[in-house]
Each structure stands twice: as structure tokens, then as C-alpha cells.
């Protein structure tokens, strides 16, 4: 269906009244029963495809890990978790002034920003850098022996500086001993503090020593060589450099509803048990029935979601994506390797609800809805040619049911109506499946590109941008495919 025009709809009652006018005799006898025709209309809507459905958007409240899907929900396009929103209210006395309130969504929304635990095992403070959850580079000072928790996208760890200075200003290096003999061999190691010891090296093994000197007095196949500097880690020396800070992460940060900042600890005021900040809750317990939700541009490159409640208007500007998991892959059996979106904001559709890992919050969904108006009336597409399809389908049903119930002399009428219905169906489906002009242009360009490629394939090794590439590369990419 073309998208550069707005689709029009009419209600089921209007459609049935239209055929009552045509089938006057059947209508006056009470043979046109609307209950028999509803399923036919629904089948016709399904035959015309998704192109005629309405794209709808709404905001749902998450309670006890799930949110009830709207009654007219059919397919989900995408979902976004909402963070704080702005409320704009006119002042009562002077209509021109407005008061803005930043109101956080009362929920401990998990984010995709990891929570890091940084341990400084050094005896002096360490300075490093990190990138915070909003992408800004920040500096960090970790006191000596301290453990801090931090929300950051990434943290830079500082490695030890190499030093060959030992105690007493003795100069040494990292020495490798390779024992190729089948029996243990003995080497003499002189450490930085002057200690001399005989160390057994296992057969067919390689060992590193951070010492002033290492020597092998034997005559076997043992190689002693200096490989680099020694590194200090408090009071020990080792050959390999190690990180100064012990950095690890095992959880994600929360979005604090009070300050709208990232925090590692779950905020105390989870909104399910606190009084509702917004007054829309008391207006109507059915949020998707009365709330008008729509998206608008925010005069930059972003989009904000407007939610019109009865006495205020909310603007949501900060979102987190929600990754939908298939319902049949229960979380306990889900293979984390297959699921590349290993994020906390996951949800799945089940039993008419959208189930989340978070306890409470607000989610914006964009979905393809059933053909219903705001009052719950079934809608049909209002198009001059497609209307005939609906009408012939209903007429065929009326006469079919009368024929099946034993009414005489209906065969010829049924045959005529069936023929007209089939012709109208073909025309309607052709119109409904007509692609958009943009899609047609892209398809035509792709066909032309492919044709040009096939045409120039035999000589592409000599001309064009692929000239000079190896034969194997061109063969692998199928440029000679014909």
C-alpha cells in the first residue's frame, strides 16, 4: 500500500448498512445478521495485509515486572524504556507563563552502563581516567587501599612501571631459565637482597626469576638468558607487568529517579510502593484508552514522546532501547552466546503482557494495531475499489448462509455473487500490495545495477573499479556469475 497518502477507514456498521441498501429484500426479512459478517470482515482485513493496519503508539506502566498490552495490539515495532519526563503546566492566573517540572519516572530503570568495582592495592593514591555513561572523559583519583564503585562505560587501568632497581640500589633483570634436560637441574640464584639460593628447575620447563643474577654450574642443556626488566608489586618483584588497579564489573547501573544520574546501588524509592507523582493515575485506570501519545521532533535531531493526560502534558526525552526476546526461549534456557544483546533491558511478549526484568517503570511502544477506532468499533478500509471487495464478500456470505439453511432458488444468485466476489478480491489485493514509489525506485535502481554488473562482468578485470584485483577475489565475489 502506498504511504504517501493517509488511509481512510469506516466502521463495520457503515459497511453493513451499505449492503442493506443493496439487499433490500433480505434486509427486510431480517436475513442480514451482523454477527455472521464480523468474521468475514476480519478475514478480508487479514487478506489485504499489514499495509492497511494502523501504526499506533502508547505508553504503558510496568507493574510487578509486566505491562498489559493494549487490547488492539497486533505486532510490535519497537519499545523504549522511558526515564524522567518534563511536565509543562500553565499558571492559573497568567495564561502566558508556564512552569516546568522535571519529574523522574518512579522506577529503578536498569541501564546498559556497567557498574565497576575499582580496588587500589597500592600504598599510594592512583590517578586514572574513565569514560562516563554519557560518553564524557573524566578523571578519577583512587585513594591508597580504597575500593570504590563507579558507573562508567570504560576505565583505563594503569600498569606497573618497569624498574630494575632493587633494594640497596642493586641492579638486576628478569632472567629466563630453560631446562631441556629430562631430569631436574639446579641453578644458583642471587636475589636483590643478597640472598643466594639453589633452586631446582623442573625438566623440560621454562622458569623466570627476578634476581640480581642467575647461573648454571652444570653441563646439561640448560639455557639462562636475561629477557627484560623486573616489575615491582608492593614488596615483591615479578617478571610480568601487572595492573595497579583491580578493576572488575558484574552488574549494570541504575538510573536514579531522584537525580536522573547513574548509580550502582538500586535506588530506595522504587515507584511501586510510593505515592504516584503524576495525577493521571487517578483519572482513568485504562491508560491506553484515554491517554493520547504521539512522537514529535524536539527541534534538533532527537524525538520526544508527548503524553497528554487529562490535566497535564508530559514530554519524555530520554529512552533506553528494549531488546525483545522470543517467548519460547525462556530466560533459564536462553543461550547467551546466541543473544548478542546481553543487556538488562530485555522483554518478551507473553499472554497479553510484556514481561520485563525490572520491577516497575514506564515503557513506550510503537505497534501495529487492530483495525479499531477509539471506541472499539471494527474498522474497514475506505477505498472506492476495495469497498467493492468487502461488499461482495458480505453479500456472498449472506446468500451462502441462506442457501445452506435450505432457502430455495438461490443457486444462480450465489453463483453470480461468487464470480463478482472473486473479481473484486483480485483487484483489491492488487491495490493493497502496490509498493510505495520509493520502494519501486530502489528496486528499479537495484535491477539496473545488477544488469550493468552482469553486462560488464567479462571485462571488469580490465576496466572499472575492480580492475587489478586478483582473479580469486573476483571469482569469490561472483562477478563472473551468469
Amino acid at each position, binding site marked *: 500500500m502506498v504511504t504517501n497518502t493517509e488511509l481512510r477507514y469506516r466502521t*463495520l*456498521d457503515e459497511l453493513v448498512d451499505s449492503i442493506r441498501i443493496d439487499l433490500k*429484500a433480505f434486509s*427486510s*426479512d*431480517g436475513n442480514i*445478521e*451482523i*454477527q455472521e459478517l*464480523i*468474521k468475514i470482515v*476480519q478475514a478480508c482485513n487479514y487478506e489485504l495485509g499489514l499495509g492497511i493496519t494502523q501504526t499506533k503508539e502508547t505508553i504503558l506502566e510496568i507493574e510487578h515486572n509486566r505491562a498489559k498490552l493494549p487490547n488492539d495490539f497486533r505486532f510490535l515495532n519497537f519499545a523504549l524504556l522511558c526515564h524522567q519526563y518534563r511536565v509543562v503546566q500553565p499558571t492559573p492566573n497568567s495564561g502566558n507563563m508556564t512552569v516546568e517540572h522535571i519529574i523522574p519516572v518512579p522506577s529503578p530503570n536498569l541501564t546498559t552502563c556497567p557498574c565497576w568495582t575499582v580496588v587500589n592495592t597500592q600504598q599510594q593514591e592512583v590517578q586514572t581516567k574513565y569514560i562516563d555513561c554519557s560518553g564524557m572523559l573524566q578523571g578519577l583519583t583512587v585513594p591508597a587501599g580504597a575500593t570504590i564503585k563507579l558507573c562508567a562505560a570504560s576505565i583505563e587501568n594503569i600498569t606497573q612501571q618497569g624498574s630494575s632497581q632493587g633494594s640497596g640500589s642493586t641492579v638486576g633483570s628478569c632472567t629466563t631459565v630453560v631446562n631441556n634436560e629430562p631430569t631436574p637441574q639446579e641453578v644458583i640464584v642471587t636475589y636483590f637482597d643478597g640472598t643466594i639460593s639453589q633452586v631446582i628447575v623442573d625438566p623440560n620447563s621454562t622458569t623466570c626469576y627476578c634476581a640480581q643474577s642467575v647461573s648454571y654450574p652444570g653441563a646439561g642443556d640448560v639455557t639462562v638468558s636475561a629477557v627484560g626488566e623486573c616489575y615491582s608489586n608492593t614488596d615483591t618483584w615479578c617478571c610480568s607487568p601487572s595492573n595497579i588497579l583491580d578493576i572488575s564489573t558484574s552488574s549494570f547501573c541504575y538510573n536514579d529517579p531522584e537525580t536522573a544520574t547513574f548509580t550502582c546501588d538500586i535506588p530506595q524509592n522504587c515507584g511501586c510502593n510510593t505515592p504516584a507523582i503524576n495525577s493521571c493515575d487517578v483519572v482513568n485506570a485504562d491508560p491506553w484508552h484515554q491517554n493520547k501519545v504521539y512522537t514529535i521532533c524536539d527541534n534538533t535531531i532527537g524525538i520526544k514522546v508527548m503524553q497528554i493526560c487529562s490535566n497535564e502534558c508530559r514530554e519524555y526525552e530520554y529512552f533506553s532501547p528494549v531488546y525483545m526476546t522470543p517467548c519460547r526461549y525462556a530466560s533459564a534456557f536462553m543461550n547467551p552466546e546466541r543473544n548478542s544483546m546481553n543487556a538488562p533491558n530485555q522483554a518478551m511478549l507473553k499472554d497479553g503482557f510484556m514481561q520485563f526484568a525490572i520491577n516497575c517503570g514506564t515503557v513506550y511502544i510503537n505497534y501495529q494495531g487492530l483495525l479499531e477506532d477509539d471506541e*472499539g*468499533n*471494527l474498522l474497514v478500509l475506505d477505498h472506492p475499489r476495495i469497498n467493492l471487495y468487502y461488499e461482495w464478500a458480505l453479500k456472498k456470505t449472506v446468500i451462502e448462509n441462506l442457501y445452506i439453511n435450505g432457502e430455495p432458488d438461490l443457486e444462480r444468485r450465489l453463483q453470480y455473487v461468487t464470480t463478482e466476489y472473486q473479481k473484486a478480491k483480485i483487484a483489491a489485493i492488487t491495490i493493497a500490495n502496490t509498493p510505495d514509489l520509493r520502494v519501486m525506485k530502489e528496486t528499479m535502481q537495484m535491477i539496473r545495477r545488477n544488469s550493468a554488473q552482469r553486462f560488464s562482468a567479462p571485462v571488469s578485470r580490465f576496466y572499472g573499479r575492480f580492475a587489478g584485483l586478483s582473479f580469486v577475489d573476483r571469482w569469490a565475489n561472483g562477478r563472473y556469475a551468469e
Partner: protein
Amino acid sequence: MSATLISTVISRIRNLVKGTTQDSFLTDYELYLLFKKYAALSMKRLDEKGKLLKFSSVFETLDYVELEEVDKVEADCIGIRSYSTFRRTKDTMPMFTEGYLGPMVNSITSLDGSSICQLVRNSDIYNYMVKQKNFRYNTTKYCWFLNDRLYFPNVDWPAVRIEGIFEEDISKWKCASYEDRCKPRQQQSINVPDFLMAEIESQVLRDLGIQLQLPQDIAQNNQNQLR
């Protein structure tokens, strides 16, 4: 067009059978019953062809039929689990003339005629409909007959308006005066289209011809014992 009175029809038949003098074997009631029998047959045949409803002269209207609230047991809708209210006519309905598809009801509407009720055969049909998932899209009001009363689910009207062809006098269901309600039956109208009268009368005469022999005009006037 003024409706034909029952007395007019009877006297027409009496004239045809030369039974105008007092006759103990040929009463008015017998003639009326014969007429009614063949009238019902003719009207049913006409209704089968779908032509009866075009004659608005035979229809009568009950402008205000009061409704009262009842529970679903009385409405014979025990199988309905969802919250539904039921109302029924306070008084029993007058007898409707039977047509091809049931009582000849032209329309059952709200008092202002804006909402139309669909008459179904019985409450079972409504029960089946309510159990459908797509019933929420059905905005039609329904009603059915049960024990000579009309039952309406999910309406909040105080009364309804009914138009149909009635067999009996409906003065007592109307806001008629005392004199109208106590009118003798012969002075009441009969709801049969005029163009059917000839056909019905000929059938009545054929039936009566079996019972009596029609005498000659002058020769038998003073001698026939029937008179």
C-alpha cells in the same frame, strides 16, 4: 385507507351464500373463523414472496410497551457469564399473525425509532453470539420471544415501540379510551389487505358449498326450511 371491519366481511359472505336471514346453522363466528383460516394462509404465502411488508395499512403500532428488569434466569440466559442486564415487556404481548419466518413483526425500536432491535428465534442464538470473541464489535440490539413476552439484553430503555400485524385487538395495549377498549369484536378491524379479500372469500365459499346447497333466488325463498 380505512381498515375493513369484521362485520363488513361477514355480511359480504352472508350475501354471497344468501344467508342474510337468521340461520341457526350459519353463525357469524363460524364465518369469521373460516375467513381467518384462509386469510392466514394467503398472508403467509404473500409473506413468503416478500411482498406483504409493502402494505403498511395492515400494520399496527404499539407506541409504548413498558419494560421491566429481570435476571438472566428468567431470560433463559443462564449460560451467559459476562455482566449483562435483561429487560422484558411488563405485560404479555398480543398475538401476532404468523408469517413465513415467524411472527409478523415489522420493527422493534426504541421510542424515538433511532435504535432498532433485531428479533432472534430464541435466547440460544443470543447465547451463542455472546460467547464469540468478536461479539464486542457487534453493536446490534437483540430481542426474543419467551412465554408471550419480549426479552431485551443490555438495553436501558424504559419502553419500546413495536410495529406488526396482530391477530387480536390491541386496544388494551394502547392508550385507548374506554369506549374503544370495549368495542364489540365485529366492530373491530381485520388486518388483511383488501386485494386478498376476493381470494379469501372465494375459498370460504368453496368450503361453505360443501355444507350447504345454495338455493335459487325466487323459487325457493318461501319454501326452503333453512330460512
